[in-house]
Protein backbone atom coordinates (compact mmCIF):
# COMPACT_ATOMS: atom_id res chain seq x y z
CA UNK A 1 0.00 0.00 0.00
CA UNK A 2 1.28 3.37 -0.99
CA UNK A 3 2.34 5.89 1.63
CA UNK A 4 0.84 9.37 1.87
CA UNK A 5 1.86 11.82 -0.81
CA UNK A 6 1.11 15.43 -1.58
CA UNK A 7 -1.42 16.30 -4.25
CA UNK A 8 -1.71 19.79 -5.68
CA UNK A 9 -5.09 20.99 -6.93
CA UNK A 10 -4.69 21.90 -10.60
CA UNK A 11 -8.35 22.29 -11.55
CA UNK A 12 -11.51 22.79 -9.53
CA UNK A 13 -15.05 23.16 -10.80
CA UNK A 14 -18.62 22.45 -9.85
CA UNK A 15 -20.36 19.99 -12.22
CA UNK A 16 -23.64 20.29 -10.30
CA UNK A 17 -24.83 22.54 -7.47
CA UNK A 18 -24.09 19.82 -4.95
CA UNK A 19 -20.73 18.53 -6.17
CA UNK A 20 -17.20 19.76 -6.69
CA UNK A 21 -14.67 18.17 -9.00
CA UNK A 22 -10.97 18.31 -8.18
CA UNK A 23 -8.14 17.42 -10.50
CA UNK A 24 -4.85 16.96 -8.72
CA UNK A 25 -1.23 16.39 -9.57
CA UNK A 26 0.70 13.78 -7.57
CA UNK A 27 4.41 13.16 -8.23
CA UNK A 28 5.34 9.59 -9.22
CA UNK A 29 1.81 8.30 -8.86
CA UNK A 30 1.30 4.53 -9.18
CA UNK A 31 -1.02 3.10 -11.82
CA UNK A 32 -4.59 2.38 -10.77
CA UNK A 33 -7.49 0.26 -11.95
CA UNK A 34 -10.85 1.79 -12.84
CA UNK A 35 -13.06 1.60 -9.74
CA UNK A 36 -10.30 2.18 -7.18
CA UNK A 37 -10.35 5.02 -4.70
CA UNK A 38 -8.01 7.39 -2.90
CA UNK A 39 -8.03 8.72 0.63
CA UNK A 40 -7.79 12.45 1.01
CA UNK A 41 -6.57 13.90 4.30
CA UNK A 42 -6.83 17.44 5.63
CA UNK A 43 -4.58 18.70 8.41
CA UNK A 44 -5.28 21.62 10.75
CA UNK A 45 -2.55 23.75 12.35
CA UNK A 46 -3.13 21.99 15.70
CA UNK A 47 -2.40 18.60 14.12
CA UNK A 48 -6.06 17.54 13.88
CA UNK A 49 -6.73 15.54 10.73
CA UNK A 50 -9.84 14.43 8.87
CA UNK A 51 -9.76 11.89 6.05
CA UNK A 52 -12.33 10.54 3.60
CA UNK A 53 -12.31 8.09 0.69
CA UNK A 54 -13.23 9.20 -2.81
CA UNK A 55 -13.55 7.10 -5.95
CA UNK A 56 -11.44 8.14 -8.90
CA UNK A 57 -13.15 9.35 -12.06
CA UNK A 58 -9.88 9.45 -13.96
CA UNK A 59 -8.25 6.78 -16.07
CA UNK A 60 -4.78 5.63 -15.01
CA UNK A 61 -3.28 7.27 -18.11
CA UNK A 62 -4.73 10.67 -17.21
CA UNK A 63 -1.86 12.89 -16.01
CA UNK A 64 -4.07 14.10 -13.16
CA UNK A 65 -6.20 12.36 -10.54
CA UNK A 66 -9.86 13.33 -10.72
CA UNK A 67 -12.17 13.13 -7.70
CA UNK A 68 -15.80 14.13 -7.32
CA UNK A 69 -16.89 15.29 -3.90
CA UNK A 70 -20.53 15.52 -2.92
CA UNK A 71 -21.29 18.27 -0.46
CA UNK A 72 -22.64 16.71 2.72
CA UNK A 73 -24.77 18.70 5.16
CA UNK A 74 -22.32 19.98 7.77
CA UNK A 75 -19.61 17.87 6.11
CA UNK A 76 -16.31 18.80 7.66
CA UNK A 77 -14.29 17.62 4.66
CA UNK A 78 -16.72 18.09 1.78
CA UNK A 79 -17.66 21.65 2.72
CA UNK A 80 -14.01 22.57 3.09
CA UNK A 81 -13.24 21.17 -0.34
CA UNK A 82 -16.25 22.90 -1.87
CA UNK A 83 -15.92 26.31 -0.20
CA UNK A 84 -12.33 26.83 0.95
CA UNK A 85 -9.92 24.75 -1.12
CA UNK A 86 -8.49 26.51 -4.17
CA UNK A 87 -6.35 25.71 -7.17
CA UNK A 88 -2.73 25.55 -5.98
CA UNK A 89 -3.55 24.15 -2.53
CA UNK A 90 -1.78 20.99 -1.43
CA UNK A 91 -3.67 18.08 0.16
CA UNK A 92 -2.47 14.71 1.41
CA UNK A 93 -3.48 11.69 -0.68
CA UNK A 94 -3.07 7.96 -0.32
CA UNK A 95 -3.93 5.30 -2.83
CA UNK A 96 -4.97 3.62 -4.97
CA UNK A 97 -7.07 1.45 -2.63
CA UNK A 98 -9.42 -1.49 -3.17
CA UNK A 99 -9.08 -4.45 -5.47
CA UNK A 100 -12.68 -5.66 -5.47
CA UNK A 101 -14.83 -2.94 -7.03
CA UNK A 102 -12.56 -2.77 -10.08
CA UNK A 103 -13.04 -3.68 -13.68
CA UNK A 104 -10.39 -6.04 -15.06
CA UNK A 105 -10.95 -4.58 -18.59
CA UNK A 106 -11.67 -8.10 -19.89
CA UNK A 107 -15.05 -9.11 -18.43
CA UNK A 108 -18.34 -8.02 -19.97
CA UNK A 109 -19.95 -5.84 -17.33
CA UNK A 110 -22.91 -3.62 -16.61
CA UNK A 111 -22.53 -0.71 -14.20
CA UNK A 112 -25.80 0.28 -12.58
CA UNK A 113 -25.00 3.48 -10.74
CA UNK A 114 -26.87 6.33 -9.09
CA UNK A 115 -26.08 9.91 -8.05
CA UNK A 116 -22.41 10.41 -7.24
CA UNK A 117 -22.09 6.63 -7.56
CA UNK A 118 -21.48 7.35 -11.26
CA UNK A 119 -17.84 8.18 -10.50
CA UNK A 120 -16.28 4.68 -10.76
CA UNK A 121 -18.37 4.07 -13.90
CA UNK A 122 -16.86 7.22 -15.42
CA UNK A 123 -13.37 5.87 -14.70
CA UNK A 124 -14.32 2.53 -16.27
CA UNK A 125 -15.77 4.29 -19.34
CA UNK A 126 -12.62 6.36 -19.82
CA UNK A 127 -10.45 3.25 -19.54
CA UNK A 128 -12.71 1.36 -21.97
CA UNK A 129 -12.40 4.21 -24.48
CA UNK A 130 -8.61 4.30 -24.16
CA UNK A 131 -8.42 0.55 -24.76
CA UNK A 132 -10.98 0.59 -27.56
CA UNK A 133 -13.11 -1.88 -25.57
CA UNK A 134 -16.32 0.05 -25.06
CA UNK A 135 -18.06 -3.10 -26.29
CA UNK A 136 -17.31 -4.73 -22.90
CA UNK A 137 -18.73 -2.04 -20.64
CA UNK A 138 -22.34 -0.94 -20.45
CA UNK A 139 -23.49 1.79 -18.11
CA UNK A 140 -26.94 2.54 -16.72
CA UNK A 141 -26.93 5.70 -14.61
CA UNK A 142 -29.75 7.22 -12.59
CA UNK A 143 -30.19 10.69 -11.18
CA UNK A 144 -32.96 13.01 -10.08
CA UNK A 145 -32.71 15.39 -13.04
CA UNK A 146 -30.14 15.91 -15.83
CA UNK A 147 -28.83 19.02 -14.05
CA UNK A 148 -28.30 17.11 -10.81
CA UNK A 149 -26.41 14.15 -12.26
CA UNK A 150 -22.66 14.74 -12.43
CA UNK A 151 -21.02 13.58 -15.66
CA UNK A 152 -24.41 13.16 -17.37
CA UNK A 153 -23.20 14.67 -20.67
CA UNK A 154 -20.05 12.51 -20.71
CA UNK A 155 -22.04 9.38 -19.88
CA UNK A 156 -24.54 10.17 -22.59
CA UNK A 157 -21.75 10.60 -25.17
CA UNK A 158 -20.35 7.25 -24.01
CA UNK A 159 -23.66 5.63 -24.86
CA UNK A 160 -24.87 5.08 -21.31
CA UNK A 161 -28.55 4.58 -20.65
CA UNK A 162 -29.80 7.32 -18.35
CA UNK A 163 -32.87 7.45 -16.14
CA UNK A 164 -34.16 10.42 -14.19
CA UNK A 165 -36.51 9.94 -11.28
CA UNK A 166 -37.79 13.53 -11.23
CA UNK A 167 -37.61 14.63 -14.84
CA UNK A 168 -39.21 13.59 -18.09
CA UNK A 169 -36.49 13.49 -20.73
CA UNK A 170 -37.38 12.91 -24.37
CA UNK A 171 -40.14 10.33 -24.42
CA UNK A 172 -39.04 8.70 -21.15
CA UNK A 173 -41.31 9.57 -18.23
CA UNK A 174 -39.78 10.41 -14.84
CA UNK A 175 -39.04 7.33 -12.75
CA UNK A 176 -36.44 4.77 -11.77
CA UNK A 177 -35.12 2.13 -14.14
CA UNK A 178 -37.49 -0.74 -14.93
CA UNK A 179 -36.64 -4.38 -15.49
CA UNK A 180 -37.69 -3.94 -19.13
CA UNK A 181 -35.16 -1.14 -19.60
CA UNK A 182 -32.37 -3.21 -18.06
CA UNK A 183 -33.10 -6.48 -19.86
CA UNK A 184 -31.20 -5.65 -23.08
CA UNK A 185 -28.29 -4.22 -21.07
CA UNK A 186 -27.97 -7.46 -19.10
CA UNK A 187 -27.66 -9.69 -22.15
CA UNK A 188 -24.32 -11.50 -22.15
CA UNK A 189 -23.05 -9.73 -19.04
CA UNK A 190 -20.59 -11.54 -16.69
CA UNK A 191 -20.70 -9.10 -13.77
CA UNK A 192 -22.87 -6.31 -12.44
CA UNK A 193 -21.38 -3.32 -10.60
CA UNK A 194 -23.67 -1.32 -8.34
CA UNK A 195 -22.55 1.98 -6.85
CA UNK A 196 -24.61 4.56 -5.02
CA UNK A 197 -26.37 5.38 -1.78
CA UNK A 198 -27.54 2.55 0.46
CA UNK A 199 -31.09 3.12 -0.77
CA UNK A 200 -30.09 3.10 -4.42
CA UNK A 201 -27.89 0.03 -3.96
CA UNK A 202 -30.70 -2.03 -2.42
CA UNK A 203 -32.98 -1.13 -5.30
CA UNK A 204 -30.29 -1.76 -7.91
CA UNK A 205 -29.32 -5.16 -6.49
CA UNK A 206 -32.93 -6.31 -6.64
CA UNK A 207 -33.29 -5.05 -10.18
CA UNK A 208 -30.21 -6.97 -11.35
CA UNK A 209 -31.32 -10.16 -9.63
CA UNK A 210 -34.81 -9.76 -11.10
CA UNK A 211 -33.13 -9.38 -14.50
CA UNK A 212 -31.52 -12.79 -14.08
CA UNK A 213 -28.05 -11.91 -12.77
CA UNK A 214 -26.63 -14.31 -10.16
CA UNK A 215 -26.24 -12.46 -6.81
CA UNK A 216 -22.68 -13.81 -6.67
CA UNK A 217 -21.93 -11.88 -9.88
CA UNK A 218 -22.88 -8.53 -8.32
CA UNK A 219 -20.26 -6.23 -6.83
CA UNK A 220 -21.49 -3.40 -4.69
CA UNK A 221 -20.10 -0.14 -3.43
CA UNK A 222 -22.52 1.65 -1.14
CA UNK A 223 -21.99 4.84 0.73
CA UNK A 224 -23.75 7.20 3.05
CA UNK A 225 -26.20 6.73 5.89
CA UNK A 226 -29.14 4.39 5.75
CA UNK A 227 -31.70 7.05 6.47
CA UNK A 228 -33.39 4.91 9.09
Amino acid at each position, binding site marked *: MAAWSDGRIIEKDQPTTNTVRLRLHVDDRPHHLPGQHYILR*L*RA*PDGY*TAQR*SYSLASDSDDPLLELLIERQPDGEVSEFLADVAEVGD*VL*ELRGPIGRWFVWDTKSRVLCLVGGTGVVPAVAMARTARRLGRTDLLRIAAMGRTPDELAYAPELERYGATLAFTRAEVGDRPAGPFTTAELAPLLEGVDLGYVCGSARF*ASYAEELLVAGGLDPAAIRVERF*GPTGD
Partner: protein
Amino acid sequence: MPVTRGFHRRRPEPERGRLPPGQYDTGSSWPVLSAEATPHQPEESWTFSIDGLVGSPHTWTWQELHALPGSTYFGDIHCVTTWSKLDTTFSGVSVDDLLAVAEPDSSAAYVMAHSVTGYTTNLPLADVTGGRAWVVWSFDGKPLPRQHGGPLRLLVPHLYFWKSAKWLSRLELMTEDRPGFWEQNGYHDRGDPWREQRYQGDD
Protein backbone atom coordinates in the same frame (compact mmCIF):
# COMPACT_ATOMS: atom_id res chain seq x y z
CA MET B 1 3.12 16.59 6.57
CA PRO B 2 1.72 19.82 5.17
CA VAL B 3 -0.91 21.80 7.05
CA THR B 4 -3.92 22.25 4.76
CA ARG B 5 -4.39 25.94 4.10
CA GLY B 6 -7.57 27.22 5.72
CA PHE B 7 -8.60 23.94 7.36
CA HIS B 8 -9.67 23.88 11.01
CA ARG B 9 -11.40 21.39 13.24
CA ARG B 10 -15.16 21.91 13.00
CA ARG B 11 -16.43 19.03 15.05
CA PRO B 12 -16.20 19.43 18.81
CA GLU B 13 -13.10 17.83 20.23
CA PRO B 14 -14.09 14.32 21.27
CA GLU B 15 -13.77 13.10 24.82
CA ARG B 16 -10.09 12.31 25.29
CA GLY B 17 -9.23 8.74 24.31
CA ARG B 18 -12.68 7.99 22.93
CA LEU B 19 -11.96 8.03 19.21
CA PRO B 20 -9.12 6.07 17.60
CA PRO B 21 -6.76 8.12 15.39
CA GLY B 22 -8.27 9.37 12.13
CA GLN B 23 -11.85 8.52 13.13
CA TYR B 24 -14.86 10.83 13.48
CA ASP B 25 -18.11 10.44 15.38
CA THR B 26 -20.92 9.69 12.91
CA GLY B 27 -23.56 10.53 15.51
CA SER B 28 -26.94 8.90 15.10
CA SER B 29 -26.38 7.80 11.50
CA TRP B 30 -25.05 4.36 10.64
CA PRO B 31 -23.43 4.20 7.20
CA VAL B 32 -23.92 1.00 5.21
CA LEU B 33 -20.98 -0.51 3.37
CA SER B 34 -20.90 -3.86 1.70
CA ALA B 35 -19.16 -5.43 -1.24
CA GLU B 36 -21.87 -7.81 -2.32
CA ALA B 37 -25.62 -8.03 -2.80
CA THR B 38 -27.65 -8.20 0.42
CA PRO B 39 -28.93 -11.76 0.89
CA HIS B 40 -32.59 -12.43 1.62
CA GLN B 41 -32.53 -15.81 3.33
CA PRO B 42 -35.24 -15.95 6.02
CA GLU B 43 -34.35 -16.32 9.70
CA GLU B 44 -36.23 -19.61 10.09
CA SER B 45 -33.85 -21.39 7.74
CA TRP B 46 -30.71 -19.65 9.04
CA THR B 47 -28.06 -21.86 10.61
CA PHE B 48 -24.73 -21.05 12.18
CA SER B 49 -21.82 -23.51 12.44
CA ILE B 50 -18.43 -23.81 14.04
CA ASP B 51 -16.10 -26.27 12.35
CA GLY B 52 -12.51 -26.78 11.28
CA LEU B 53 -10.08 -27.61 14.07
CA VAL B 54 -12.61 -28.37 16.78
CA GLY B 55 -13.39 -31.42 18.88
CA SER B 56 -17.11 -31.36 18.13
CA PRO B 57 -18.23 -29.38 15.09
CA HIS B 58 -21.65 -27.92 15.80
CA THR B 59 -24.50 -26.33 13.90
CA TRP B 60 -27.13 -24.20 15.62
CA THR B 61 -30.54 -23.37 14.21
CA TRP B 62 -31.99 -19.90 14.64
CA GLN B 63 -34.09 -21.15 17.58
CA GLU B 64 -31.15 -22.93 19.20
CA LEU B 65 -29.03 -19.79 19.08
CA HIS B 66 -31.76 -17.83 20.82
CA ALA B 67 -32.02 -20.48 23.53
CA LEU B 68 -28.37 -19.87 24.56
CA PRO B 69 -27.53 -17.50 27.43
CA GLY B 70 -27.70 -13.96 26.02
CA SER B 71 -24.85 -11.49 26.00
CA THR B 72 -24.86 -7.78 25.17
CA TYR B 73 -22.15 -5.36 24.03
CA PHE B 74 -22.45 -1.74 25.06
CA GLY B 75 -19.86 0.46 23.39
CA ASP B 76 -18.33 1.90 20.27
CA ILE B 77 -17.69 0.56 16.77
CA HIS B 78 -15.10 1.79 14.28
CA CYS B 79 -15.19 1.49 10.49
CA VAL B 80 -12.03 1.65 8.38
CA THR B 81 -13.72 4.31 6.22
CA THR B 82 -13.18 6.59 9.28
CA TRP B 83 -16.58 6.76 10.94
CA SER B 84 -17.07 5.58 14.49
CA LYS B 85 -20.44 5.06 16.10
CA LEU B 86 -20.49 5.58 19.84
CA ASP B 87 -22.61 3.93 22.51
CA THR B 88 -24.11 1.14 20.45
CA THR B 89 -25.98 -1.80 21.97
CA PHE B 90 -25.78 -5.19 20.26
CA SER B 91 -27.26 -8.39 21.69
CA GLY B 92 -26.77 -12.02 20.86
CA VAL B 93 -24.45 -14.61 22.30
CA SER B 94 -20.79 -14.53 23.30
CA VAL B 95 -18.40 -16.34 20.93
CA ASP B 96 -16.81 -17.86 24.07
CA ASP B 97 -20.06 -19.69 24.81
CA LEU B 98 -20.26 -21.03 21.25
CA LEU B 99 -16.63 -22.16 21.27
CA ALA B 100 -17.19 -23.94 24.58
CA VAL B 101 -19.63 -26.21 22.77
CA ALA B 102 -17.38 -26.80 19.74
CA GLU B 103 -14.19 -27.36 21.80
CA PRO B 104 -11.34 -25.87 19.71
CA ASP B 105 -8.23 -28.02 19.33
CA SER B 106 -5.16 -26.76 21.16
CA SER B 107 -3.54 -26.23 17.73
CA ALA B 108 -6.27 -23.81 16.58
CA ALA B 109 -4.87 -20.28 16.47
CA TYR B 110 -6.96 -18.47 13.82
CA VAL B 111 -10.58 -18.16 12.79
CA MET B 112 -12.13 -17.55 9.37
CA ALA B 113 -15.59 -16.02 9.53
CA HIS B 114 -17.79 -16.97 6.55
CA SER B 115 -20.93 -15.22 5.32
CA VAL B 116 -23.71 -16.74 3.25
CA THR B 117 -22.63 -14.36 0.46
CA GLY B 118 -19.17 -15.91 0.29
CA TYR B 119 -17.59 -12.98 2.16
CA THR B 120 -14.81 -14.03 4.53
CA THR B 121 -12.61 -12.35 7.13
CA ASN B 122 -9.78 -13.83 9.18
CA LEU B 123 -9.00 -13.20 12.84
CA PRO B 124 -6.58 -14.53 15.45
CA LEU B 125 -8.51 -16.82 17.80
CA ALA B 126 -7.34 -14.58 20.66
CA ASP B 127 -9.37 -11.71 19.15
CA VAL B 128 -12.67 -13.59 19.35
CA THR B 129 -12.21 -15.04 22.84
CA GLY B 130 -12.05 -13.56 26.33
CA GLY B 131 -15.38 -11.72 26.14
CA ARG B 132 -14.41 -9.58 23.14
CA ALA B 133 -16.56 -11.07 20.36
CA TRP B 134 -20.23 -11.85 19.85
CA VAL B 135 -22.61 -13.35 17.33
CA VAL B 136 -25.46 -10.82 17.35
CA TRP B 137 -29.00 -10.49 16.01
CA SER B 138 -30.26 -7.38 17.71
CA PHE B 139 -29.31 -3.70 17.67
CA ASP B 140 -30.74 -1.21 20.17
CA GLY B 141 -33.33 -3.74 21.20
CA LYS B 142 -34.65 -4.38 17.68
CA PRO B 143 -33.86 -7.10 15.15
CA LEU B 144 -30.62 -6.29 13.35
CA PRO B 145 -31.59 -4.75 9.97
CA ARG B 146 -30.62 -6.76 6.92
CA GLN B 147 -28.44 -4.04 5.42
CA HIS B 148 -26.42 -4.04 8.67
CA GLY B 149 -25.87 -7.79 8.50
CA GLY B 150 -29.12 -9.15 9.89
CA PRO B 151 -30.32 -11.59 10.78
CA LEU B 152 -26.91 -12.63 12.14
CA ARG B 153 -23.51 -10.95 12.18
CA LEU B 154 -20.21 -11.32 13.93
CA LEU B 155 -19.31 -8.47 16.30
CA VAL B 156 -15.64 -7.86 17.13
CA PRO B 157 -15.82 -4.23 18.21
CA HIS B 158 -12.16 -3.78 19.17
CA LEU B 159 -11.17 -4.27 15.51
CA TYR B 160 -12.24 -2.33 12.39
CA PHE B 161 -15.76 -3.29 11.47
CA TRP B 162 -15.00 -5.23 8.28
CA LYS B 163 -13.87 -7.95 10.71
CA SER B 164 -17.45 -8.09 12.06
CA ALA B 165 -18.73 -10.15 9.15
CA LYS B 166 -22.34 -9.52 8.10
CA TRP B 167 -24.74 -12.38 7.32
CA LEU B 168 -22.59 -14.81 9.31
CA SER B 169 -23.03 -18.51 8.67
CA ARG B 170 -19.86 -20.13 9.92
CA LEU B 171 -16.68 -19.83 11.98
CA GLU B 172 -13.86 -22.06 10.79
CA LEU B 173 -10.96 -22.71 13.18
CA MET B 174 -7.52 -22.99 11.62
CA THR B 175 -3.89 -23.58 12.61
CA GLU B 176 -2.47 -21.18 10.04
CA ASP B 177 -3.61 -17.67 9.21
CA ARG B 178 -5.15 -17.20 5.77
CA PRO B 179 -6.37 -13.89 4.32
CA GLY B 180 -10.11 -13.23 4.05
CA PHE B 181 -11.92 -11.12 1.45
CA TRP B 182 -10.72 -7.59 2.22
CA GLU B 183 -7.43 -8.93 3.54
CA GLN B 184 -6.80 -10.21 -0.01
CA ASN B 185 -8.00 -6.93 -1.44
CA GLY B 186 -5.62 -4.47 0.16
CA TYR B 187 -6.72 -4.25 3.80
CA HIS B 188 -4.65 -4.93 6.90
CA ASP B 189 -4.51 -8.47 8.27
CA ARG B 190 -5.49 -7.57 11.86
CA GLY B 191 -7.18 -4.15 11.71
CA ASP B 192 -6.65 -2.61 15.15
CA PRO B 193 -8.20 0.87 15.00
CA TRP B 194 -6.06 2.17 17.90
CA ARG B 195 -2.94 1.38 15.88
CA GLU B 196 -4.62 2.62 12.68
CA GLN B 197 -4.03 -0.70 10.89
CA ARG B 198 -6.22 0.16 7.90
CA TYR B 199 -4.39 -1.10 4.85
CA GLN B 200 -1.63 -3.50 3.93
CA GLY B 201 1.69 -1.98 4.87
CA ASP B 202 0.37 -0.16 7.94
CA ASP B 203 2.31 -1.16 11.08
